[in-house]
């Protein structure tokens, strides 16, 4: 079934650990995005990608990094997690020709202790 998946859904991890949040989509979309959202606040774009081997930083500065080696896969990595990284991370994608409608994954809620 065409969908966008995020794993894990919840993650509690200690300070200093390296973490990777997974995002995969089976919809054949070329553009993918990562948003960060704190409770009650707006979504902030932190990374986006036009396609394979193309990544850009978003409007909100983030210590995370991303890669896009395969069309369907857009993982986000934090080399050394800190409590300030505690947030919800949403992955989204949009299809060719209609760049404005974004399809969202279920999100990963990250807590760094």
């Amino acid at each position, binding site marked *: 079934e065409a969908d966008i998946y995020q794993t894990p859904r919840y993650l509690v991890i200690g300070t200093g650990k390296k973490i990777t949040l997974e995002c995969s989509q089976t919809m054949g979309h070329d553009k993918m995005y990562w948003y960060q959202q704190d409770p*009650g606040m*707006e979504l*902030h774009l932190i990374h*986006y990608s036009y396609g394979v081997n193309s990544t850009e930083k978003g409007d909100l500065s983030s210590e995370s990094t991303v890669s896009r080696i395969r069309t369907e896969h857009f993982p986000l990595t934090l080399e050394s997690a800190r409590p300030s990284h505690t947030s919800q991370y949403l992955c*989204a994608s*949009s299809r060719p020709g209609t760049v404005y409608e974004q*399809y969202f994954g279920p*999100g990963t809620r990250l807590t760094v202790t």
Partner: protein
Amino acid sequence: AQRVTQPEKLLSVFKGAPVELKCNYSYSGSPELFWYVQYSRQRLQLLLRHISRESIKGFTADLNKGETSFHLKKPFAQEEDSAMYYCALSISPDSWGKLQFGAGTQVVVTP
């Protein structure tokens, strides 16, 4: 810089009453505006976009460039409308589909 403002964090209405969610934006060019909705325990999804001029689930939204607003309206609220609503702005044509979101409005419809 582009900005989207949703002045109400929480909107509580009775079933059957009209509901209006306010959204104002700041952008001097030609905006593309959207409303996204997140129901409890569901993922964020597109509700409607101004360019389609459509009505979805009884909701409509009109772009008012003079007032830089894109308010979402429904004449008779239903309990299933309880959700978090986000207004979003895309600055075409070179935004690569990037969206600027407002902080969201939580709508609670009580019977």
